[in-house]
């Protein structure tokens, strides 16, 4: 819900969400041209989560992510040029091409290396939070992970560590399988295989504050994150936020099953025949369209404003893609740097 946000906040958040959407579309386009090394995971459908949480974070806070980190990076304020270049393995990328998509990082934004290992990042996030606590520094660590991570013992241990010492951690569990009927015993990436029915029950049993938020609702995410951050810096310990989104219907990498988002869709509501089967998703679950509609409804923007923003965003992404494409690959000698003294 928008009303809790100021017009500026709202516009800025929307712009970021759209930036993420266009960025991911560009990734898929590049993949189709065979330009993206390795396989990658896009953030389409989850934009409100990263943007909503990041909006309440402080510069000094730490942000930790997983294999699905593009959206978090951009929401944190990363330069799309350097982010795209990194995904293409170029010398101008955030890590000079070494990290790529799985290990997104922007160290200058306190966004250290993402972990590609499911749940691997959770213990690490308790450590950065511990450092804050140890130094009595009023900062928090926000860690993003999927509901799949909750199947790993590492997640359990990390929650326990955070609970024992009341560490300032925001555990943001992005449940992108929320619509899947939960049938225990059926596995596969997008069907939860966790017998804990409500994901928040585990944190609850550890006396960690919990909240369940709708991931297409920017305002709700924003508010929940704000409360959680305030709790953490005032010594109240961690919060476990389950953010529920409907799986992006184009989960099949690297196909853009939903097609390129048409921002006019926010008001025309015209679903091209090709995407008729996704009408419900466009109508209810697409966070980008949802926020656009909310802003239109309360009069923050006009249809025309939206088109103008979109054009600017698309331009920014086009430039990022151009920059990345024109950037050189790293010199092969750099393959040996950054471990031992050369």
């Amino acid at each position, binding site marked *: 819900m928008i009303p809790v946000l100021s017009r500026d906040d709202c516009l800025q958040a929307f712009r970021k969400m759209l930036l993420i959407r266009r960025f991911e579309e560009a990734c898929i386009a590049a993949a189709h041209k065979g330009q993206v090394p390795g396989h990658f995971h896009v953030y389409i459908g989850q934009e409100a989560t990263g943007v909503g949480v990041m909006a309440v974070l402080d510069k000094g806070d730490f942000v930790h992510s997983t294999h699905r980190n593009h959206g978090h990076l951009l929401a944190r304020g990363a330069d799309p040029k350097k982010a795209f270049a990194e995904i293409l393995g170029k010398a101008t990328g955030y890590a000079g091409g070494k990290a790529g998509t799985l290990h997104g990082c922007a160290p200058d934004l306190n966004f250290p290396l993402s972990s590609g290992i499911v749940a691997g990042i959770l213990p690490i996030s308790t450590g950065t939070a511990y450092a804050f606590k140890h130094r009595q520094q009023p900062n928090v660590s926000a860690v993003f992970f999927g509901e799949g991570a909750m199947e790993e013992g590492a997640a359990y241990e990390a929650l326990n560590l955070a609970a024992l010492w009341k560490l300032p951690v925001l555990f943001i569990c992005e449940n992108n399988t929320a619509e899947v009927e939960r049938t225990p015993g059926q596995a596969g990436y997008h069907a939860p295989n966790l017998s804990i029915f409500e994901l928040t029950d585990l944190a609850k049993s550890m006396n960690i504050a919990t909240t369940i938020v709708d991931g297409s609702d920017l305002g709700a995410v924003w508010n929940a994150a704000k409360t959680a951050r305030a709790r953490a810096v005032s010594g109240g310990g961690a919060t476990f936020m389950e953010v529920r989104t409907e799986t992006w219907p184009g989960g099949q*990498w690297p196909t853009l099953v939903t097609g390129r988002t048409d921002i006019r869709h926010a008001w025309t509501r015209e679903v091209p025949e090709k995407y008729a089967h996704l009408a419900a998703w466009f109508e209810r679950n697409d966070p980008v369209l949802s926020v656009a509609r909310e802003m239109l409804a309360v009069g923050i923007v006009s249809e025309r404003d939206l088109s103008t923003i979109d054009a600017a965003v698309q331009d920014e992404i086009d430039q990022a893609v151009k920059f990345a494409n024109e950037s050189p690959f*790293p010199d092969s000698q750099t*393959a040996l740097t950054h471990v031992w003294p050369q």
Partner: protein
Amino acid sequence: MTDITFGEAKIKAVGDLMRDDERVIIIGGAGFGGLLHAKHVKPLHDEFEPRILRTPIAELGFCGMGIGAAMAGLYPIVTIGTGSFAFEAWPQIVNEAPNISYMSGGQVKVPIIFHALVGIRISGAAQHSARPQAMLMQAAGLQVIAPARASDVKGLLSAAKDSERPTFWIDHPLLFEEKQPSNGGTSLPLGKAAVVRKGKDVTLVGYSIDLVRCLEAATQLANASIDAEVIDLRTLTPLDADTICESVAKTGRLVIADECYPAASVASEVASIFTDRGFGLLKKPARRLNFPAVPVPLSPPLEQHLLPRVDKIVAAAKELVN
């Protein structure tokens, strides 16, 4: 003897194992190929659906579960997926499974196969490119097999099963589409390397994907009138020092290709044979081609720079011969 892909032979071998013995089950839905090969694996999954346990992302838990199932009379093939994920289950793989038979005085057996697609899969980056095989050679009581040819996969799997020992199957994501003659079938002796190509000038030792690289190098070397003998280790534990020594006794020259990091690697172990059992056989220093001691970068030119590529094998062999 027809040409099939390694992947087809592998799927068939697993299927045969399951058809022959209903105690064989699969734990872990990861399967025997990467995302791109899912369609080839599907028929296997379809045929044996009730004997496939699709698990949560809980490698430590389900590898341990496999060990228990093995103790209780089943024969689990545990599919871990990418080799790096074996680390999640390390306590069960290296500190439970290999100890049980020995510690119980031979009374409790753990007949199980752990399967993973290990190695540099191209742009998997540091955390999805692990080669745990040298580490696994440090787990006494664990058998490590690495079939690289369609003709061997069934034989090695059968032998592993017959041995009733816990076994780690080092598979490689890039092997799937290798087209090879398939004449395999019977059980092969474990711990016996294969001379895949006879030659007299230089010995090339490889296993898994590096065997493929060695064979390609041998072909190129032949064009340069260098006659390379190519050895496929096939099993890493036990390791067949005799066959390697026999070859080097003839050639006096040794090149080893091994995706592992250099220190305490498969290549180290193979080279070190020539400081004792094979002492004096080398006429020239051995050449080890490992992945240098840096994590695996994503960027293609960096990764290519570090891989034990065919041209590096060729160059090393030429240097030794000339």
